[in-house]
């Protein structure tokens, strides 16, 4: 019983002494005065890999397009939409929106207007902020409406054709509106930026 108490007391004493001595260390001046960049907001290897893959799929699609294989090009661009980017990386949205714009244009060129419109609508619904890529997607949306109007024209459905043209104008207007706001924002930032 006595031994147990002695051991307990000694352990407690050493622990407390250790705590106080450890507590003293930071005041000794060995603390780092610089802060290294947080790993979650810097460009890391995962982001570079995702961007490299997107780049390769785009190049692959270009080869297919120049080779007259729009279906294969479409499939290659579609791969970009399923690429895994680091969580929260803003580049992911921009790259995907740009891929959707190209994908929609490829689908339009193949006469798949509904699929093209679905691709655009999904992209616009997922967009978190207004960017030049979103504006470009609205432009592509306008092109799809124009293509639909042309189809209705060929079917002598003037009313629907007019409706699609109006929708096209709305889409272009939205694109112009976003671009104008962004350009204004860029012009306001420029004077304060260091040269």
């Amino acid at each position, binding site marked *: 019983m*006595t*031994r147990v*108490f*002695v051991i307990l*007391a*000694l352990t*407690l*004493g050493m*622990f*407390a*002494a250790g*705590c*106080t001595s450890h*507590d003293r260390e930071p005041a000794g001046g060995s603390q780092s*005065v*610089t*802060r*290294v*960049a947080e790993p979650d*907001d*810097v*460009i*890391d*290897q995962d*982001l*570079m890999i995702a*961007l*490299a893959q*997107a*780049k390769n799929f*785009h*190049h692959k*699609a*270009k080869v297919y397009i120049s080779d007259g294989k729009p279906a294969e090009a479409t499939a290659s661009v579609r791969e970009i939409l399923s690429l895994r980017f*680091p969580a*929260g*990386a*803003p*580049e992911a*949205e*921009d*790259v995907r929106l*740009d*891929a959707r*714009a*190209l994908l929609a*244009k*490829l689908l339009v060129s193949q006469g798949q207007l509904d699929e093209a419109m679905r691709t655009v609508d999904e992209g616009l619904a997922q967009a978190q*902020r207004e*960017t*030049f*890529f979103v*504006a*470009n997607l609205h*432009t*592509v949306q306008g092109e799809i409406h124009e293509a639909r109007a042309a189809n209705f024209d060929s079917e002598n459905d003037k009313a629907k054709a007019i409706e699609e043209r109006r929708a096209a104008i709305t889409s272009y207007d939205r694109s112009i509106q976003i*671009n104008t706001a*962004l*350009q204004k924002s*860029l012009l306001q930032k420029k004077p304060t930026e260091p040269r």
Partner: protein
Amino acid sequence: MSTDDDDILSAPVPDPDAEPTAAERAHARTFADLVDKTLSGRTPPAMSADDRALLEVATVIRATSGGLELAPQRTRSIVEDALRQAIGANSAATSMGGVTPITAAKSRRRWVPWAIAATSSIVAVAAIMMLWLRTPKQLAAPVAPVAQQETPANWKSRPVELPGPITRDKSGDALSRIDYIFADRLEGFRERRLRGGKP
């Protein structure tokens, strides 16, 4: 000059069945008294040589029979002397002088662990008190400004900065844009890696 004592010791051994004589009885009674006095520590200062010899024999017989007990003081003295010899101390020293008495050692052995435990406990309590007393001071003290070096913008993952709107004729030119994005981010990535992540 011959005495009765001489007669007893030098005379032939009587027959076991023979009746003791009056002189033998008187001598036996006298010797019994002498033995009793010796055992009670009242040994007569003078006695005959025969009585002394008989008395020594009687003492030895009593000691060997196991009934003899030493006084506590004497027992302790003997043990202390034996211990002193065992540890190589001067045997000529007094029995209670140089060696710690067994009783004293026992009592010391009893309080030493408690003293260690108490000291350790006091140290522990003092250390904990110091922690408690110092912590609020540290919290209240102004935090030293840490020189936070801003991470360069080109090292960060960020929205793609395009110089201007995407014109309609360039709407499908996603390839040139991804080339630009990749090259820009690669530059920042390499710069960060080469500097070990420190601005």
